[in-house]
């Protein structure tokens, strides 16, 4: 079965420090991977995606993610965290299952990022 795991419910970081939000995936074939951010009472905002090509993907608001095929991981990173980065972060993979997949996403359960001043 295809799945996405975000092993940390919450990540706490001091402002100015680097941050990492972890994600691992399980799919058949080559994955299409995405990161989204959700602020309270809002929908999900697209940050970045990996389809093919360079393993290091750069996205919005200074975020980047590293695709690691051998470890089936797609961790989200930022060199210097801001208080305004505090939000809920979701990793997702495109559903590749046979017989129904039309591109819908399978999401992890989310990681709450808290950046303290």
């Amino acid at each position: 079965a295809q799945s996405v795991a975000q092993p940390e419910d919450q990540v706490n970081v001091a402002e100015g420090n680097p941050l990492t939000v972890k994600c691992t995936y399980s799919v058949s074939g080559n994955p299409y991977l995405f990161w989204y951010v959700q602020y309270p009472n809002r929908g999900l905002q697209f940050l970045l995606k990996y389809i093919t090509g360079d393993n290091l993907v750069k996205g919005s608001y200074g975020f980047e993610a590293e695709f690691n095929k051998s470890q089936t991981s797609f961790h989200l990173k930022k060199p210097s965290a801001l208080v305004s980065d505090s939000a809920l972060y979701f990793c997702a993979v495109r559903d590749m299952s046979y017989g129904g997949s039309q591109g819908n996403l399978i999401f992890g359960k989310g990681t709450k990022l808290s950046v303290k001043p």
Partner: protein
Amino acid sequence: GAGVSQSPRYKVAKRGQDVALRCDPISGHVSLFWYQQALGQGPEFLTYFQNEAQLDKSGLPSDRFFAERPEGSVSTLKIQRTQQEDSAVYLCASSLARGTQGQPQHFGDGTRLSIL
């Protein structure tokens, strides 16, 4: 508008009532998805439209859930005879291309449904 618009933002209904949730996707977007997000969870897929065709409804939890997109733009998700377990945030997303092409999905702010 510039983004995906959903209405109402909040809906409270009594158990057994029918509800209808509306989604206005980004103009010209071919693909439209509905997701259900329970409290503290990630969104879960409900159904997918390519233009007016509903190509995948495998995520709809029961036959009380029905979705349509008759003219290939606005979509409505209808829930009949609501139950308390239907309480969740319902998210709509659209993307420019067919879903399989890996284009990012753009989400609305959702409708928070509470069933009393």
